[in-house]
């Protein structure tokens, strides 16, 4: 089993497309443009044989950030592409579910809680709040947007 760390190869492959690169032991965080996310995700998932652990939406002062966490299991390294969505009122980005089937639920959850619309998602509907007792007129975690 090849347990080589492939971080350097990855950085070389996508040179110019990655910004705000944070490199820690076995962790690589970087910002990628929305138009490139599907290509980057496909390379990480198919070519590097990484597994999608999950994705995390976070609200920061000027954007909604969506951070995908891919695990390269043979080496124990994490590759984390981050997409910053500036339009906080109508956050929209490309879905990676067409290339990573395992992203289906987590993207639905982020749509559900953070109101992020994922373009080309096969089933763009709420995941956890479909049976919510309240009639929801906004995503559950969208209240803190100023």
């Amino acid at each position: 089993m090849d347990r080589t760390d492939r971080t350097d190869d990855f950085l070389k492959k996508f040179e110019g497309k990655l910004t705000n690169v944070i490199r820690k032991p076995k962790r690589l965080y970087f910002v990628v443009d929305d138009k490139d996310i599907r290509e980057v995700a496909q390379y990480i998932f198919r070519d590097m044989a990484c597994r999608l652990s999950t994705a995390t939406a976070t609200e920061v002062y000027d954007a909604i950030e969506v951070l995908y966490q891919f695990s390269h299991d043979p080496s124990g390294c994490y590759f984390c592409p981050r997409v910053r969505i500036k339009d906080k009122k109508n956050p929209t980005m490309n879905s990676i579910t067409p290339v990573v089937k395992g992203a289906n639920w987590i993207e639905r959850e982020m749509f559900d809680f953070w109101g992020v619309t994922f373009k080309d998602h096969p089933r763009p509907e709420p995941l956890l709040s479909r049976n919510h007792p309240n009639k929801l007129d906004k995503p559950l975690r969208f209240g803190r947007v100023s």
Partner: protein
Amino acid sequence: MKLSENMNQVPVGPFHPLLEEAEYFNLTVEGETVVDIDLDIGWMHRGHEFISEQKTFTQSIFLVERICGICSTSHPLACVHAIEDVDNIEIPERAAYIRTLVGELERIHSHLLWLGLAGHFIGYDTLWMWAWKYREPVLQMFEIISGNRNHYGVMRVGGVSRDIDLDRVKELHKILDTVDAKIKMIAAAAPDDPVLKSRLVGVGVLTNQDAIDMCAVGPTSRASGVPWDVRKDEPTDAYGLVDFDVIVLQNGDVWDKLVVRLLETLESTKICRQCLDKLKTVKGPILNNVKEISAGEGIGRYEAPRGEVFHYVRTDGSNRAIRHKIRAPSYVNIPTYSASCKGIPIADALITLAAVDPCYCCTERALRVKGEDPDAIDFVKLSREKTERIRREIHGH
């Protein structure tokens, strides 16, 4: 899915005497064959991620311990790993062995619990009674270690909260010997059992490609030939210091999932024995004094009995996380039903659904009902109003 003339829909749940948790499956059947399955989750309202972001790091550890009654060490362990990952904090060697011991004991009791349930689901109650009987001493070991049979409160950032003295180590050794003998007995008997084999071999197959595509984890993926195990891939705590094997099988059916768990239980007893041996000789502190966590991001994970538990924290230099993401293994394993349940007889659907050892309270850790929304329903208030209404109806005033 569009229904044809020969198709029917069979709803299971969300509330049903057989189901331990609120869960809903809509099975589309053609004759007796399942042709499609729709899953509907979101029946439990918990809000752990949001609440954790209001708590200090230490309080969060207690909170996440209560996400799941079975994985009550996996979540806090992944949580402390995530917080430690922000600053690359190291822990004392003795603490590493205690963490690993508690984690592996949890795996033993969880796998035995599943084994019993699996036996019960297929009407083989002897297996259920055996497995649960021999799970009991493991809970006693937890009581010796922490004072509790569940929710042990052991994990801390920088180490563990309590030590295990030599007398207790000897006591634990004795109980482990008993447990080990009994598990070996089950592990020898179960694979030769004709009832189990005829009921489980070839049932609910998850192919290797489906397991990879759907990012399945733990015994669910290892039974389909995917060799990943966090304990080997990123060995934290004492996993790099002990000897054990990762169990991987190839067929992906319910039988292989059962055998993976049985063999993993034996590996866990092996790890526990090594940890207890080391606790006799490795001395020193059990907790590094961590004064503050700097601003940054951390990923923590742990191989829970059901697979990888994942925690992500984002910090701003204060004493709490500004974002705490939690992903339980069931969250990625439950969607595999859409691959493993199609084409099987409806009678096999139940054990196939149970085979991933699903945990819905973990899966639905995020939803909350009451919070910033002033119009949200307050269930406590509703409950009180109902009690008052019934009281008035009975007493007439």
